[in-house]
């Protein structure tokens, strides 16, 4: 879970970021920040996965985030 699982969820989270992140006055933050922050997004999931006291709860939470962001991507792309 801490390895490939968190990478997949981090990529889904990164891909979904342009849908909810404000683009800012320059109109680029919603695309620039996901590209820049993708490794840090993974780091956050990774730390949670390895350092959580209850590993089952961590796995459920991370999988849940993956499912929600995946659904957001599918809905947005289908609607778009």
């Amino acid at each position, binding site marked *: 879970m801490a390895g490939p699982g968190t990478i997949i969820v981090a*990529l889904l989270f990164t891909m979904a970021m342009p849908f909810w992140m404000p683009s800012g006055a320059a109109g680029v933050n919603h695309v*620039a920040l996901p590209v*820049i922050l993708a490794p840090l997004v993974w*780091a956050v999931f*990774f730390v949670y996965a*390895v350092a959580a006291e209850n590993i089952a709860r961590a796995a459920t939470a991370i999988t849940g985030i993956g499912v929600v962001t995946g659904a957001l991507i599918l809905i947005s792309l289908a609607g778009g």
Partner: protein
Amino acid sequence: MADRIELNPVEKLTQTQVKRMTAVHGWAGTILGLVLYVVIVSGTIVVFGHEISEWSSGGTRVHQELSDMSNLDGNVRAIAEHTSKGYLDRITMFTNSRGELAVFPHTQVMHPEDQRPKAYGSLYNLDPATGETIRRFDGFAFDDEESHHTSALEDFLVELHVALYVPNPWGSILTGIMGLLVMATAITGFLMHRHLFRDLFVAARRGERLVTTRDRHILAASWSLIFAFLLGFTGSFYSFAGTVTFPLVSKAAFGGDRQAMINTMFMPPTKIDTTPAPVADLDRMVAQSVERMGGSVRFVQILNWGRADGRMRIFHTPNDGGLAFGQTIFRTSDGKFLGEKPIVGSEPSLGADLYGLIHPLHFGDFAGVFSKSVWVGLGTAMAYVIISGLRLWVRRREDEVLWQHFGRAVTITGFGLPLAMLASAWAYFPALAFGDPFFWTPIGFFAGAAAIILFGALSDADRLIPRLLRLLSVGCLALPILRLGFGGTGWVDAADLNLGAVPALDMVFALIGVGLWFWASRTDAATNDRAGAAGNTGGIGHSTMEPAE
């Protein structure tokens, strides 16, 4: 008092959590550690890639910045006038380490192998003084490394670091995963750490070899902890941006149109106007840009040559006190300054600020040789952390045959990688004089690596490290002689051309060679002592291939 301010995350963790963290730290490092070591060592060396290029290129002329060239306008205009209109969408200009001016009029064409638009046109390498064409590369010119790299040695080392010589996109993805691994081991190492601040200043204990290796591993890791995290983060950004994250984000935000995302992020906003228009004096625009921005000009690009919507983008290295690259935009039809442009977008933003920080943090070139030297020092510490960590792992399992073999693989990789890199340099200089250096340099590396693996597998385990050290020493000491013998730039010419990298790197190799010889002698003596002690007690000499502590 020290205890009160000590960061001590481990005390808040349960034993199960610490065990899990130790397992992740150890296994992740063990499975991918040797590959990571290649990325770290090659990356540490290419911090001085520009200097290596100057030192090894040969045939160098007086190096001029784009801003120092008196006839940039004439040279570029002569090429533009002889280029068909379809290739005047973009004209890129930069200088190379031989002091030549590169001018590349091109358009974007779908690359048949990469399946994405890439620069297609004719790239000229010119003598900046006379405008004479020295070389010309047609088609997807950047596919030919020689078009934009003057040193096959520097090109090889960069390629090794960026993609491990594995075809893209897999090479970049692999090094991106290595970046994540650095972050993972740094985070878990930090969380496992009992006394972070104290360990920064505690010397390794002598005597007990396992404890000494552990102390040294922790000492080097403590000093390079933040650096490792930053390099892992910025490195995985570079590796994943082009191959993974950029396509994903462009799919989400632009329906998969990568060019639209590139235009939004990096191109100056323009209203299309194809009306023919003159092109103002390029030298004057460059001079104005230098006056405003300070730092030297890294490269220049003209968009839509000879059209009313033509723009000139001028990229500057950071000026005094700055970290990020700067960019100015001019209208080419009348030479009017349109403003400074952030690296990303057309107005300042958080995204642009962070984007601008990634380059200096990864390359360490924000304060010249000083910051680069610090980056090399910390990179060396990281390489040591990997090897010492692997050794610790092996030592705790040294009764098992499999781990003994792995221990030998660690030693061969640890000392063999720098030796194979030297072999690539040894292949490069003769090839520069007689053959194709872009072909022979990697051949030299892989042939050298194969020979070292064979030597390491067959050599007496107790004598392996001193032997590898002596080979490294001789390889370093003889490299400047080899360079000069095959027509490399001499010290007198280097002084005339203001190429400080030439004598500096020759001296660095000589000093490293001498240092390695002393290290080998010391290791030999320690091995002899151990063998003598074992003989006196009737025991068996230690055969874990360990150098003197």
